[in-house]
């Protein structure tokens, strides 16, 4: 108890609190700007931390990370353009709710579920990080491959009326995911002699092209003088207790899935939001509301991406393995201060680690408070006429893409992808299927081939551990359930059409 009091005294200093505030504001704004995102915000603040005491600097970066995860949903909800890859699933229900019902309410659902997810991730970090990190080591290449396959099956769950179009979308995403140098053989694949493509299609350019630029074309084609109808009432951001209870189940599932994928380095928040969305939409009591502005559809991905932030710190603090790109940069702050992340950090830097533990919870609280303060202002974005909005968003997108890698090539790439996806959206292809397949393609392919290298070509490796067998059974069960459900549906109501979850 004495320790706790001392830890809290160390934590609640003016410097630490100011750093958390600054990090939160920067993270939220960068998260909300399409293309800029969490990683760039953290990288931008990294040099600032060198002049600060270690705890203050690291808390600033953590606050940026947390707030960026929520910030990504702001543009996803208001503009239909995810600010970060981790907010891509939030578009599906967040944007319709903002457009048809109330932008303020949609943002509040996101903020509340993000905060709960963040707190959950923080509690996981405090109480079970060491055993959990050890447990996560049991997941090797075969298990990662199977997890990727399960993720890809979420596409099947999300796909709309037209199964053929959905499958074409998946194939497009998988193809985009294989561009670049093959990790295992060093061969260039589909790079067309462009060095910029050797590391694959830049995720930021891909995401901004498919969501933002294509969306801007749609806004232009609808006419630039329209604006969303929003009166004072719909900008209100409060939620009633009943409304919060309504997203309880969805937030719990999202938080569990987010923290679970977060502790597995290399899976990432980009995939976890889709896992959460798929599970919640399939198990909801009101599945028909999904895709049309369901509050549960916002809460699931938003709670999961914030919980995955806490989860990604678990392998980092316990084992010195960064769980996500943003955490890898935060590791830079440790190293610059001469602190070696790894198993010794708990004993060698005890005060720092506990400061991070409790401080992480404080960053979530700061995110909620600043979110409450800024959200009404953000909600007003929709009152801006499209003629201004399109130009502003386009400029921000271009800055974001260029800032990600400093390559002009990526700007042209995003424009090309934007035109292609404008056509695909018009033809009612599922954009979400493409992005899930793109995110999962490298996880599935690399881990599959690596598994077979490890086993010298034997497929037994996929049945070699309890975890891989359990995952294989999950794949089989999911396929079985899908076939059974489809047969049942056809027998009972041959004319009914399934709900459409694809983004239009």
């Amino acid at each position, binding site marked *: 108890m004495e320790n706790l009091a001392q830890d809290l005294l160390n934590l609640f200093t003016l410097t630490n609190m100011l750093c958390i505030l600054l990090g939160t504001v920067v993270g939220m704004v960068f998260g909300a700007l399409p293309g800029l995102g969490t990683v760039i915000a953290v990288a931008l603040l*990294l040099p600032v931390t060198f002049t600060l005491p270690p705890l203050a600097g690291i808390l600033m970066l953590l606050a940026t990370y947390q707030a960026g995860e929520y910030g990504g949903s702001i543009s996803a909800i208001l503009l239909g353009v995810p600010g970060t890859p981790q907010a891509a699933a939030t578009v599906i229900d967040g944007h319709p709710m903002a457009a048809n019902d109330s932008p303020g309410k949609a943002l509040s659902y996101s903020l509340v579920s993000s905060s709960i997810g963040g707190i959950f991730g923080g509690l996981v970090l405090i109480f079970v990080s060491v055993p959990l990190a050890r447990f996560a*080591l049991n997941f090797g*290449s075969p298990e990662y491959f199977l997890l990727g396959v399960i993720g890809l099956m979420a596409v099947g769950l999300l796909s709309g009326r037209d199964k053929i179009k959905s499958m074409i979308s998946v194939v497009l995403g998988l193809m985009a995911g294989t561009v670049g140098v093959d990790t295992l053989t060093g061969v260039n694949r589909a790079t067309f002699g462009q060095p910029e493509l050797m590391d694959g299609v830049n995720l930021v350019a891909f995401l901004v092209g498919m969501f933002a630029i294509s969306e801007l074309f749609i806004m232009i084609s609808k006419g630039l003088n329209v604006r969303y109808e929003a009166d004072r009432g719909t900008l209100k951001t409060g939620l009633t207790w009943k409304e919060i209870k309504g997203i309880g189940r969805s937030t719990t599932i999202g938080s569990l899935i987010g923290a679970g994928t977060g502790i597995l380095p290399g899976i990432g928040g980009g995939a976890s939001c889709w896992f959460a969305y798929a599970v919640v939409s399939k198990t909801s009591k009101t599945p028909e509301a999904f895709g049309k502005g369901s509050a549960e559809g916002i809460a699931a991905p938003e709670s999961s991406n914030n919980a995955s932030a806490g989860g990604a710190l678990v392998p980092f603090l316990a084992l010195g393995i960064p769980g996500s790109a943003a955490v890898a*940069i935060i590791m830079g702050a440790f190293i610059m201060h001469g602190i070696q992340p*790894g198993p010794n950090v708990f004993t060698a830097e005890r005060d720092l680690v506990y400061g991070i533990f409790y401080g992480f919870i404080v960053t979530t609280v700061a995110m909620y408070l600043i979110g409450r303060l800024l959200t009404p202002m953000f909600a007003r974005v929709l009152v801006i006429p499209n003629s201004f909005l399109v130009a502003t968003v386009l400029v921000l997108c271009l800055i974001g893409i260029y800032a990600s890698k400093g390559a002009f090539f990526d700007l042209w790439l995003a424009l090309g992808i934007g035109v292609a996806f404008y056509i695909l959206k018009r033809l009612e292809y599922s954009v979400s299927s493409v992005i899930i397949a793109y995110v999962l393609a490298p996880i599935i392919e690399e881990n599959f081939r*690596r598994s077979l290298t*490890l086993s010298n070509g034997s497929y037994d490796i996929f049945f070699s551990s309890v975890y891989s067998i359990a995952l294989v059974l999950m794949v089989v069960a999911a396929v079985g359930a899908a076939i059974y459900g489809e047969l049942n549906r056809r027998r009972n109501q041959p004319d009914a059409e399934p709900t459409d979850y694809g983004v239009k």
Partner: protein
Amino acid sequence: MFTFLTKTAAVTMALASLVLATSPTEGAAQGYPEKPITWIVPDGAGGGLDTIVRTIYPYVEKNLPNDATFVLKNLPGATQTIAVSEVFNSAPDGYTIGQASVAPLTIMPHLGKTSYSGYEDFELIANVFDAAHYIVVPGDSPFQSLDDLLAHAKENPGAVKVGVDGVFNVQHLPLLNLEQSAGVDLNEITYKSSAESKKALLGGEIEAAIMPSHIIISEYESGTLRPIVDVMEVKPDYFADIPSLKDLGYTPSQLFVGVIAPKGTPQDIQDTLSAAIEAALQDPELLEALAKRKIMVNFNDSAAYKARMEALDVVNKGILTDLGVLK
């Protein structure tokens, strides 16, 4: 008014030429630099190499004449070849320099993946630091030494799984070279990063992995991971007791990171830059900051830097020829 201005200008110019005439530097370096110098960093903002360059550059600025300033330009990707190509395509006027490791200069050109043909297409200004990579085993591994590992591998060809963080790179080539010279067959497992191979090693998926020394210090101290041999030429002081390949009679590889400039950059400008880097790397304040980060500062002047590059290039080219992947 007009005559006053002309007179002032004339006096200023006379004074300026007097100052210039008495300054110690001569030729093109006179007045250099007149504008900010672009320093191309082959790493994203916030990455490992990026933060190192950001730590060093103010000290180099301090040691350059004429209030020199650097503008850092991040061009990550494609094993640093995007950044190095940018240096290759820049004007050799002393206003563009770049940071580069050995892979984009002695490996990637031989794989036919670059617009330039090798390190000969650049002016090598100075080497800045070295890195050490170790073959690492889990703390409870039966392999106490490299000999144990090689003996086991000899009896069980293809059974020992060793992780590397990429294919045909600074970790993969030394491993292939070791296999060849020791006459063993290891199963090389490729991961995307050292973080991934560390996870695989701790999880028991592989028996050993090659890893940069600075990311395993904490594991070494707590006993969860054990470095058994340094595959590079230079050893960090914190692992001074652990043998290197050279100690054991094998050919070591080298991993060093220096500053390059476009071919044809005037010699006196090269000298000015090299001298400024040398002076910066003696600044105790900078040395302390780099020591904290476990960076092994190792200044080589242009000639030494070039000699090392040449030697490594021959070794790497040989390995790639034996593998049949040389382009």
